[in-house]
């Protein structure tokens, strides 16, 4: 490749003459793949189509190219010079067109590396992997959404603070597991106390806030505003104690991918899928087979009739809050295991939960579960066609589409809507 040769010569000249100066501006970075440095890769910087400089990554993966003054440069990595089997994680980003360098800045540029996949079946394999990832994520969304939907069905309240209940579970598990001040339990041992506390939080919200307000005949609209205020309050309390940075659990934070046929996932994701689905089936059985489940469905169907037939409605609502919060907490812990624990993780998830709940039909527990799975798969697979940054947009797009076409959702009854 003649151009590459020309770049190399330029690079040699530059390295021989100037090198990198500390005072001037430069563009640089470190190439690595799974912690291993990647050496001998050619990178070129140009300014309005004229080459400014070029460099090859050193043995420790670092590279630096001095540039003349601040400006918007184009940085290109020579894909052909990558070692065998390596490729850019995003093949479309081998040329970065708008790298802005400020005066005196040493601008860092990142080229994320990934495995090069066989060209032929790559598309289908990628799609299958995205579906698998989507199922895991969807199962977590489903867990959290079922709680939201159950609470709505017995109280009529859409709890905008439900996301903060999700975060609460994850944060308590983190405090027990990885916080310097905590007891440093193994994360699996931290799950049970964290879930118990989250259930307790649900009971506290009902007994301390929403039941008194209901007693005072506060309307639904006011209760929704209360729940959003509560969400704002709790979220920033988490921020205060947790800080803004993402936190990881001590165990399972980084796992090598394991292959099952064409699908490769970290084993933790498979476990999460199994646990979440088991919990969902458990909730389904409880709703169908147990006395409490029957009572919940009765209260959801007609509160007054349920009360008249001797059901203690307040007790059922309290138990629903505990159940819903526990499920949300479990969702939060699982999300923390597969991703990280962050102060606003629940609020980010809330919008996805809404999409799941509306898709399934507000107030239907099974609908919320199925909706969660569908939304999970839809958002993950959308990255096959769309940029990753549109993931949440897809979920919300589905939400609006459902409201236009079938506002009662997949399983909802028409009369609930109007």
């Amino acid at each position, binding site marked *: 490749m003649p151009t590459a040769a020309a770049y190399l010569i330029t690079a040699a000249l530059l390295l021989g003459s100037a090198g990198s100066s500390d005072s001037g501006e430069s563009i640089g970075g470190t190439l690595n793949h799974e912690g291993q440095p990647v050496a001998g890769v050619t990178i070129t910087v140009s300014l309005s189509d004229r080459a400014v400089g070029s460099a090859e990554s050193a043995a420790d993966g670092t590279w630096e190219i001095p540039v003349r003054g601040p400006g918007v440069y184009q940085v290109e990595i020579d894909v052909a010079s990558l070692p065998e089997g390596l490729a850019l994680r995003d093949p479309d980003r081998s040329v970065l067109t*708008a790298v802005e360098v400020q005066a005196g800045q040493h601008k860092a540029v990142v080229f994320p590396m990934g495995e090069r996949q066989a060209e032929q079946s790559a598309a289908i394999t990628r799609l299958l992997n995205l579906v698998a990832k989507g199922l895991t994520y969807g199962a977590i969304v489903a867990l959290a959404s079922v709680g939201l939907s159950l609470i709505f069905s017995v109280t009529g309240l859409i709890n905008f603070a439900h996301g903060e209940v999700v975060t609460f579970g994850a944060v308590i598990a983190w405090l027990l597991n990885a916080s310097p001040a905590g007891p440093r339990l193994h994360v699996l041992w931290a799950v049970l106390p964290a879930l118990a506390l989250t259930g307790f939080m649900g009971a506290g919200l009902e007994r301390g806030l929403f039941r008194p307000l209901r007693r005072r005949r506060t309307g639904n609209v006011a209760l929704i505003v*209360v729940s*959003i205020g509560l969400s704002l309050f709790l979220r920033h309390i988490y*921020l205060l104690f947790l800080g803004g940075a993402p936190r990881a659990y001590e165990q399972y934070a980084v796992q090598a991918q394991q292959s099952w046929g064409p699908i490769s996932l970290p084993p933790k994701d498979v476990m999460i899928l199994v646990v979440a689905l088991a919990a969902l089936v458990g909730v389904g059985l409880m709703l169908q087979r147990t006395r409490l489940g029957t009572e919940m469905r009765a209260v959801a169907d007609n509160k007054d009739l349920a009360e008249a037939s001797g059901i203690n409605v307040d007790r059922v609502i309290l138990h629903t809050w505990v159940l819903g919060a526990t499920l949300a907490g479990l969702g939060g812990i699982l999300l923390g295991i597969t991703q990280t624990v962050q102060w606003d993780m629940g609020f980010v998830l809330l919008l996805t939960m809404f999409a799941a709940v509306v898709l399934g039909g507000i107030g239907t527990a099974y609908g919320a579960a199925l909706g969660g799975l569908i939304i999970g798969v839809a958002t993950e697979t959308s990255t096959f066609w769309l940029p990753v940054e549109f993931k949440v947009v897809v979920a919300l797009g589905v939400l609006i589409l459902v409201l236009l076409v079938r506002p009662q959702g997949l399983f909802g009854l028409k009369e609930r809507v*109007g």
Partner: protein
Amino acid sequence: MDLLRILTDSLRAAVGVSAAAYALAAAGLNVHFGYTGLLNFGHVAFMMMGAYGTAVTVDQGGPLWLGLLVGVAAAALLGLLLGIPTLRLRADYLAIVTIATAEILRLVARSHTAEPLTRGVFGIQQFADPFYALNPIPLGRYGFGSFNFSHRQLWVVLVGWAVVALVLLLLTALMRSPWGRVLRAIREDEDAARSLGKNVFAYKIQSLVLGGVIGSLAGVLLAVDTQAVNPDTFVSILTFYAYTVLILGGAGRILAPIVGALVFWFLLQLSDGLLRGAVEAGWLGSLIEASDVAAIRFALVGLGLVLLMALRPQGILGSRQELLTDER
């Protein structure tokens, strides 16, 4: 801790540009929430339309006045698009869709795909110079002692509050008209309004668009004041600031936005100043650091919203009888 400085800072905040902008935003919300009973949780999307409409138009080479028109038109269009799928449904659906749309718009504005228009995460700066060129106030600082504004700040503050006054005059007239009475009838009892032959859906759409346009003016004001728009300014917290301002003032009252904004910004700046002062004086030890003050401010707003709604939902001016917060 300099108490006098904290007090004058709080007073400045109470009459400052932010307060004027939130008064405007709350006036828009008042049309939605206070008069029509619409639960719009994505008000920030309308503010964003105003701000980005202006900034993008100027950035693409258009004049500033055209930018203002584009921003307002974009907000009106957004109102229509939001209203059509949701306003036939129960109130909570509108809340869900509006909060979701606001988030979509923010994510799209900061995405790579939209960079040619919005400049992504960098945002757009320095688009309001023509506005400042119109400033008739001579150079200098105006005020008493440490309570003062530069001629530039004073110009924005005066224009901002003038717009608030105009909007509130317009709303007074509108809400006294038969049109306004229908809105309140819808808030009180939608079925009754419908049974009188009113097209409830059309009225709700009109209310959503009108409130949205007023909200977009708040966005323009914020953007012109800072001469910058950035997607991460327009997070959902802004919506709930506006709700707190409105409910503090008293939803469904014409003057609620002004009273709410004055009190809200005074209290916010006061608690901020007191906290920072206490941190600097070392009274709080290592319990709270200066960087935590912002988080505490948001938490306090959330707590304030809960307590207001639970204890005094009619706010400062409202009457409990004329409220949508009780079960019917």
